[in-house]
């Protein structure tokens, strides 16, 4: 057999074929969508038909001591299997949940127990676990179990936490979990010495991720093998695996964690292990039976995590052009009852607040405070919406104070492209220097002004006002550190069928990873996108991984997979070169066939190269004969597998950049406020977005659309209505209002592609961008429409109505520029 024999088609006169179109950069339809729209997705609750199901009794009190638990009346419930309380937890399960991200500033970190030990610290904290034949019976049993509590006065609200009349944790003075100060230069002196200065007091409330699929975990114990398989609706299967192995004291290699299709995460599922993620596997082993828990919506509201709540004080000093000379920011951050995810959210706020601007001297101080509410962990945007809100409210205030155009003030403060890389002299959330790698911020600002018609808006506003309508425009810019480390891996393998199988350890929650990673591999290897199958979030395929968060999947796994694909390509060319007698550098791969650049008829399919890559003793089919001991024309002077080589056409590479890469953008929104009812309508929403090279423009735009929807929710609809006793009053989709399609504007997008120098693909993350500047942009636009300052977000119609009343009563000062004439220069610029 001569393996140089090419199929007849390839023997025809070698008309040079046009190069295959590149997959990267094309708006290819998503590979995963057919499965999902056909109802063939496999989500957590689709698994484990015969599993026992768990339900939890959760605290009805925000703060209380658990006095007694009476499970007696539940014992007669048909289908009940077992009931567990804290007293039942063995070994390391009885310890507090892990403190995932330690930080020197986190001096008083606290985490809860899988089941409450003596105290409960928020409504919804798990107290009793009930396992039954099905969820119906489990809930029946829950109803019959009584827990006796001694209610204690709760701490609700940031002011109350700071006042610290009551302590959430008696051994945490002042309710302060962590306290961090970062400073470059002498910011307070710079503010004091500046020609002008302002002080702002800002308030932003809680929202939450609210994925359509809640959390869930399903565990299967193999008693003979002593091994555990966990399925979890998580953003980090490798993290869950390691956490459960540690908690149950199992060897890591005896624990697998597989992520099925996941119906959204947005941050809440990066937290791990959740109490249920350790309890369900523990019970599965204990009972030697499959066990499953599927979170319901009320549980998700009161037992998972929220984000965003902060009070901010900004002192800023600036010159007559609005250039910031000193910026001094003080943040009170509500971290809820526990700090399982450390100080990440306020750390991001305090650094990403700076956006595309040079702050002069900068000082930021935050206190992360305990309250008797659901804990706070990153939600898409992760502290940035708050930071951008603080900075952009400040920009608008400076413009108003000086009577300057709001865009001009921003322009005056921008970092210029020639200043890249730009070092802020601070430490970012990953503990590494905050150094911007790329971006053209003046170009981004210019693009948004053109897209939204910034310069023409004043005339439109006047015309609208003459018709009795109120309209306003706002804009907000952001910089987002994406693709933080430490690393991700990619594994690429070409099978003898010629099909390519790719694995990366981080998980997917609907982002389209199966598609974009296939696009990357298709281009690197010269194969069709259809021939590439991607697996994510399965520790059986890739044991080393971090997780999906911080807009890092494309940057981290995308580059790791590209590097692995390059490794496979090199090996394929080497083996093909030996087989074809052509130097590898003279070979190319086109549509899955390795061929000579000089004579395309000299070729070998990648599948055959895969056969040759694995010297065989046994043949299973016609194709594999060539790789057996008596097949082909082996060189008997060499071992079948060369020294330093390994069998198979596969490669595994890791990508671990020294620092994050920084995406940026600007949003602009035009709103109309009803002069009578104070209802707020979005007229236009424009986005300029720079995430470097676009792997798949359609998917990037989809990410932006989804983010903008959440931005609209965060600005106008969503909040967590805790009453003073710590009850969450709107813990259902009836009263927690996420925008429907009918509330979500058409998003107009323009891209800027400044490549990142930080990674081989030149890309920056795109996952969170859409949500980040929304609240700031809306505050700016509503302020513009109304003519008085907006300092508290989100805002709903009855609040705008109340603000109007207070404005009319003289309790709120007007903007210095009168609404309707925003670009007029105020002649009375007052000195500080």
């Amino acid at each position, binding site marked *: 057999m001569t393996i140089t024999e090419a199929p007849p088609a390839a023997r025809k006169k070698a008309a040079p074929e046009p190069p295959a179109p590149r997959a990267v950069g094309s708006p290819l339809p998503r590979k995963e969508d057919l499965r999902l729209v056909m109802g063939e997705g496999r989500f957590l609750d689709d698994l484990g038909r015969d599993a026992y199901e768990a339900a939890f009794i959760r605290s009805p009190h925000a703060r209380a001591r658990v006095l007694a638990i009476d499970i007696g009346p539940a014992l007669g419930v048909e289908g009940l299997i077992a009931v567990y309380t804290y007293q039942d937890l063995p070994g390391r399960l009885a310890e507090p949940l892990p403190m995932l991200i330690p930080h020197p500033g986190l001096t008083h970190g606290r985490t809860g127990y899988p089941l409450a030990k003596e105290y409960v610290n928020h409504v919804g904290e798990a107290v009793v676990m009930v396992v039954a034949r099905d969820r119906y019976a489990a809930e*029946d049993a829950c*109803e019959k179990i009584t827990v006796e509590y001694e209610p204690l006065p709760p701490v609700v609200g940031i002011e109350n936490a700071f006042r610290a009349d009551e302590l959430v944790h008696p051994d945490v003075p002042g309710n302060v979990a962590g306290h961090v100060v970062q400073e470059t230069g002498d910011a307070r002196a710079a503010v004091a010495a500046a020609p002008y200065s302002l002080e702002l007091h800002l308030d932003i409330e809680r929202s939450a991720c609210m994925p359509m699929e809640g959390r869930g975990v399903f565990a299967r114990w193999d008693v003979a093998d002593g091994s555990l398989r966990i399925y979890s609706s998580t953003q980090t299967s490798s993290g869950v695996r390691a956490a459960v192995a540690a908690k149950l004291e199992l060897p890591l290699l005896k624990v697998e964690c597989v992520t099925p299709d996941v119906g959204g995460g947005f941050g809440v599922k990066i937290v791990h292990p959740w109490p249920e993620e350790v309890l369900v596997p523990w019970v599965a082993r204990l009972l030697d039976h499959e066990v499953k828990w599927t979170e319901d919506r009320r549980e998700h509201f009161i037992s998972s995590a929220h984000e965003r709540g902060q009070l901010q004080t900004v002192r800023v000093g600036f010159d007559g052009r609005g250039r910031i000379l000193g910026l001094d920011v003080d943040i009170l951050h509500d971290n809820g009852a526990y700090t399982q995810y450390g100080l990440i959210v306020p750390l991001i706020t305090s650094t990403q607040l700076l956006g595309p601007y040079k702050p002069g001297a900068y000082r930021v101080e935050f206190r992360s405070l305990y309250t008797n509410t659901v804990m706070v962990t990153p939600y898409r945007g992760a502290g940035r919406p708050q930071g951008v809100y603080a900075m952009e409210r400040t920009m608008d205030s400076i413009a108003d104070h000086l009577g300057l155009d709001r865009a001009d003030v921003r322009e005056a403060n921008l970092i210029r492209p020639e200043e890249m890389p730009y070092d802020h002299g601070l430490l970012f959330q990953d503990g590494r220097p905050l150094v911007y790698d790329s971006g053209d911020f003046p170009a981004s600002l210019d693009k948004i002004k053109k897209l939204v018609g910034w310069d023409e808006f004043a005339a439109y506003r006047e015309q609208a006002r003459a018709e009795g309508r109120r309209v306003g425009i706002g804009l907000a810019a952001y910089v987002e550190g994406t693709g933080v480390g430490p690393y991700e891996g990619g594994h690429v393998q070409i099978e003898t069928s010629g099909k390519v199988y790719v694995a990366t350890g981080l998980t997917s929650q609907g982002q389209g990873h199966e598609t974009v990673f296939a696009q990357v591999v298709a281009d690197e290897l010269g194969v069709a996108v259809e021939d590439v199958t991607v697996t994510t979030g399965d520790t059986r395929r890739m044991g080393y991984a971090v997780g999906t968060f911080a807009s890092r999947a494309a940057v981290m796994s995308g580059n790791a997979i590209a590097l692995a694909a390059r490794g496979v390509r090199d090996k394929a060319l080497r083996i093909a070169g030996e087989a074809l007698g052509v130097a590898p550098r003279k070979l190319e791969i086109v549509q899955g066939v390795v061929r000579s650049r000089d004579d395309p008829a000299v070729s070998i399919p990648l599948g055959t190269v895969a056969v040759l890559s694995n010297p065989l003793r046994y043949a299973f089919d016609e194709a594999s004969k060539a790789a057996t001991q008596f097949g082909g024309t082996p060189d008997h002077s060499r071992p079948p597998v060369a020294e330093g080589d390994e069998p198979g056409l596969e490669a595994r590479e890791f990508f671990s950049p020294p620092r994050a890469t920084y995406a940026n953008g600007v949003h602009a929104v035009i709103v109309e406020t009803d002069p009578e*009812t104070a209802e707020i309508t979005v007229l236009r929403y424009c986005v300029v977005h720079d995430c470097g090279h676009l792997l798949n423009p359609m998917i990037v735009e989809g990410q932006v659309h989804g983010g903008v929807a959440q931005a609209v929710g965060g600005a106008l*609809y969503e909040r967590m209505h805790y009453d003073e006793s710590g009850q969450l009053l709107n813990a259902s989709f*009836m009263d927690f209002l996420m925008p429907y399609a009918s509330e979500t504007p058409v998003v107009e997008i323009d891209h800027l592609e400044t490549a990142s120098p930080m990674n081989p693909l030149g890309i920056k993350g795109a996952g969170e961008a859409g949500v980040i500047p929304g609240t700031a942009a809306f505050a700016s636009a509503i302020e513009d429409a109304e003519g008085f300052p907006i300092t508290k977000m989100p805002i*709903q*119609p*009855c609040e705008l109505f*109340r603000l109007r009343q207070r404005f009319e009563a003289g309790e709120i000062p007007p903007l210095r520029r009168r609404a309707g004439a925003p670009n007029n220069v105020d002649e009375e610029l007052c000195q500080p």
Partner: protein
Amino acid sequence: MKPPAFRYHSPRSLPEALDTLDAVGHDGKVLAGGQSLIPILNMRLAAPGHLVDINGLTELAYVRTDADGVRVGALARHADVEADADAHRAVSLLRQGLRLVAHPVIRNRGTTVGSLVHADPSGEMTAVLSLLGGSVELARLGGTRRVGAADFFTGPLESCVEPGEMAVSAYFPRLRGRTGTEFIEAARRHGDYAMCGVAAAVTLDDDLRIVSARAAYLSVSPVPLVLDLTETLAGATPDTAHWRAAGELAADRTEPDSDIHATAEYRRHLVRVLTARALRTAAVRGADPAVGGDGQGSDDQGSDDRECGARD
């Protein structure tokens, strides 16, 4: 979010259903569209021992219009009533209100009679029935009775349906004279429970002067509230009427409560604004020559959002 155990009944005829309801008494609940009942069961806010599913009683899936009004059977879905052209010509307020009832998928399943029995003070159809002075027919083993809207709603989420009874139909009478109607709301999101909603009917004489102006309200009172606002508008034409005065009068006569979506003060403000808007639109419709002397004004051409009112 799983209901406690209940016994499920699936009667094939109305007599069989009434037999079953009679047998289970206090412990029974009728399941029709299930758009409110099922969530209530799943959240364990109610735990009836017996569910009597009337979805097999197809004889109750009707919308019948005659010279006097529209009769809606217990199994007619909101979407059936909304789409019914005869019903719309006779009682335009039905469609004007129905398109504000949640979303199309909910209207495909939820029943108009069921929403009346549910007696939610933020229900659109409770306001429609009340403004029109309609009635509900209740059946039990061995008899029926008819209850007017004013007596039907007894409290928030409470109607006068007794154990063993079921509502078999609702009757929406046609408004007489040169009458125009309008239904508008202010809701947080499209399709949400309204912060305030107003159903208005304005009747004009042949000189197009207002002789009657009435409005019904949702979400501002424990049971549907109907106000006669004629005193502020009588004798005026749609061009000259002092709509704001009517709004002020309505605001004075309502005592709304606060909740997380709207303060009492804001709700009262909405009463003021929406009353004026709804009455004006109703009057303009009444004055439309195409309306003639007997009807509530057509709004076929209006798109959903146009008619949403508050954002006009």
